[in-house]
């Protein structure tokens, strides 16, 4: 069996083996470059996909790297249980902005996830119409008048009723409850992703077509549609203190956004732990960075711009 294949694979194996042996010994770039470490460990930050989150996460990651010498990896994954599981598994250490309103309870009860306080941003969720409609139909922002305009919002997918574009899958959504509690003649359409909503609002505004959809603050879309906030539909306030009383919900409450740490990060009690606990900024801060991102800066550039401009805040976070 002196086939070439045999001989050739022997050469290949030998070459690869040599390469591996070589890579195992000898000086490498690694040795010369293992400088920055300090007493800060290495951590993974969950990167959720919306622009505001990216802004917060990039800023805290860069501060941790530059000011504290931490090794930070940024891992993209979906929000919610997926990330809590990852924290429990030890592959994620920080969620910088969680909107979940306590849905991590099962994990925090087990000690896998630890609350690290509010991050200073206040989350506002609501139903918004396309801004141009406010001018044309001034009373549309009162939920009582929505049924009057329901026919405007009809699409091929809404079964004869108005189309109500619900928020992305992982987000807190109570559209079906709002529709029934406010007795609205609308059908909830699950837009599935943030992209779909951005698209819906921008197109509607541009083509002056009717649109009602889920939106929130802080959100980068506001920088593209500055009049969006005025287009929020006001629903009667409701009692959010008892989320279990599901059927009576008429509108979303404001939510202070929460930072969540892994058990490992909490227990480490090192400079990064205190940075996480101290991190706090405003909706305006976040929107500024997010807007830079939206306008084409890379996350690093946008974060650097904010860090450079807010040295004092950064100093207060790292305790210098």
């Amino acid at each position, binding site marked *: 069996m002196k*086939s*070439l*294949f045999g*001989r*050739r694979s022997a*050469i*290949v194996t*030998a*070459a*690869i083996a*040599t*390469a591996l042996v*070589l*890579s195992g010994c*000898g000086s*490498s*770039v*690694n040795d010369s*470059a*293992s400088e920055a470490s300090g007493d800060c460990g290495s951590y993974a930050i969950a990167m959720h*996909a*919306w*622009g505001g989150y990216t802004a917060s996460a990039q800023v805290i990651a860069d501060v941790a790297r530059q000011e504290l010498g931490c090794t930070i990896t940024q891992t*993209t*994954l*979906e*929000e*919610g*249980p*997926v*990330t809590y*599981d990852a924290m*429990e*598994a030890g*592959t994620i250490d920080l969620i910088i902005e969680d909107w979940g309103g306590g*849905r991590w309870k*099962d994990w925090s009860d*087990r000690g896998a996830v630890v609350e690290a306080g509010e991050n200073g941003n206040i989350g506002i969720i609501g139903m918004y119409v396309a801004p141009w409609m406010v001018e044309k139909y001034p009373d549309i922002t009162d939920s009582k008048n929505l049924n009057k305009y329901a026919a405007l919002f009809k*699409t*091929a*997918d809404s079964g004869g009723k108005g189309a109500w*574009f619900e928020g992305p*899958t*992982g987000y807190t959504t*109570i559209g*079906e*409850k709002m529709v029934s509690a406010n007795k609205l003649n609308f059908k909830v*359409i*699950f*837009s*599935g*992703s*943030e*992209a*779909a909503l*951005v*698209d*819906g609002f921008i*197109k509607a505004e541009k083509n002056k077509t009717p649109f009602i959809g889920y939106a929130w603050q802080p959100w980068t879309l506001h920088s593209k549609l500055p009049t969006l906030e005025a287009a929020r539909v006001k629903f009667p306030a409701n009692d959010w203190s008892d989320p279990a009383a*599901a059927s009576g919900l008429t509108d979303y409450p404001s939510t202070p956004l929460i930072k969540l740490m892994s058990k490992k990060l909490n227990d480490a009690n090192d400079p990064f732990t205190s940075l996480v606990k101290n991190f706090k900024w405003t909706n305006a801060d976040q929107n500024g960075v997010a807007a830079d991102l939206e306008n084409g800066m890379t996350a690093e550039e946008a974060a650097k711009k904010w860090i450079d401009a807010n040295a004092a805040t950064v100093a207060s976070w790292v305790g210098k």
Partner: protein
Amino acid sequence: MKVRKSYLLLASVTVWILLGRLLNGTHTLQIATYENTPFTSFVGEKALDLRGNRTESPAFIYFFNPIRGAIDGFVQMIRNLIAVPGQNSVIPVIGWLGVVAIVAFVVYATSQWRTALLSVSLLLACGALGMWQFTMDSIAMTLAAVLLSLAIGIPLGIWAGLSDRVLKIFTPFLDLAQILPTLVYMAPIALVFMIGAASATIATMIYSIPIAIRITSHAIRSLNQAPVEAAESMGSTNMQKLSKVQIPMAKQMIVLGINQTVMAAVSFVVIAALIGAPGLGKPVIDALIIRNVGQGFVAGFAVVFLAILLDRSTSAAAKRQVSFIPPTQKQIKTKRLTLIVAGILAVVSVFVSRTMLWAAVWPKEVTIAPQVAKVTNDITAWILENLTIFTVGFKDLISYGFLNPLETQLAASPWYVTVGMIVALALIIGGTRTAIMSFVLSMAIVLSGLWYEAMLTLTQTIVGCLLTMIVGLALGIWTGRSDRVEKVLRPFLDAGQTLPAFVYLVPMLGLFGPTRFTAIATGIVYSIPVVVKIVSEGIRAVPQTLIEAATAAGSTTRQIITKVQLPAAKKTILLATNQGLIYVLAVVVIGGFVGAGGLGYLVIAGNSKPELQGKGLIAGVAILLLGVIFDRIMQAGARRSS
């Protein structure tokens, strides 16, 4: 007989429509999305318990967690080698130059220098797209999944190749794995093995092991039996027969199986990012979420490049041995010499990639990503600007003309009417056994509490499949009849099959907005290549003599197509329809991301909302049941028609 069947079909459809109209809106089993049935909340609680148990229950401590640890470790090892820095280091063990050199060397050794050159260019292109590290991560993930899949799949495949009984036991599982939309089993896997590389690897393996088993067993079974019998007649033991005769002879086809396994694993690269796989999936999914078509395509191109790279390098290895005759001494000597030189170069490159920073970390300045993103963004913007009128018109046409009536019929009719119709269809097309099976599976969906959502998904799948078949048949016949068309279309079909559905979900969203049709359109684009391929193969397989006979009898081209080629390829076309349905179903489910609702939305929602977890898991099962019903009815139909 044939006439009677079509009358029966017509009659039952009429009855179904009448009953549906009459009882419209009653017993639809619709419940609000946030509501759970006792069954779904039970499953949800169990799932939550399972999460809690992961640190306590012996099944986890002694079984699942060690598996997860081992696979994680394996993946991490490969990643550290080429993709990410290990502990206390800033670069991976082998830098980019080293990786390029090793790939070039290995591909050159297993095929020719041209393939090696192509592979290197593709790798460099991935780097230039700014995707070097993602690409390396994807290669690492693919490599890990493929190695493990082969380690399991080839022995099992050989076993199934040797024993009829084993094959019989495996077959239903292999069939099931082919029908199963990937999105469906990722949640349960993540539940047990947690989010991360291990789950992603296992999910990939579930997808690729069946392919390895199938091809290996087929390789053993389709061997020329004469040498095998001869070896037996000479007194070989079973082991000798296997090691000296069957495996050496089947080697070539098994290598082809490796190629297919690799391709299956690559096609998983994107979707696996949903459960924490590092790699190219991340930028693709990010692009979907922030609707950045340009970024989506940049990452998508990298996926395609990677797929082509892995395909060409592994299929070349398979083809190299068309004949069992090895090259001459002289050829061997020349090749050996060049191999040694190339090997030395590779070793030096690896060494350099460990000592010089420029060769270790892909230089950020070398990038064409912004340009590519800009071009694609501009093109998309132009299309959105100028074509939306047509696309929206088309979307509304399909929605009002097909989707809404069918949805009313399927989802707004009482469940028992629709179940009755499905069973009647199964009976007429497939016979009693198929009918019983369809009844049992349909009832399982009814009892799961997700009947209404299942009907929404069914509607979209049917409409998607119909459109796919219209386009796919036309293109398939065309490519089947003309070598030139086939030559032109082939690369597009190949690329279409490797490009992850997620990549075109983004522009589709731009064209059609968050609607059911976006999911359907994506499903159509995704499934057309496979339908075209199968149909054109079917057309090509029609014996030339038949066509010559028809031509000699004075048939027109149209008559040849409708009277000769289509009837002769009927079975293949039914199989193509079946494949189309399964593919459309798989994508319609992803449509939950873009407003398609239905079962897919529940699967996705179940992943992110703890209170919907049970519903999401059950929705996955319901998708599978739908798929099995489709598949059984179509397969039975294909069997009967032959």
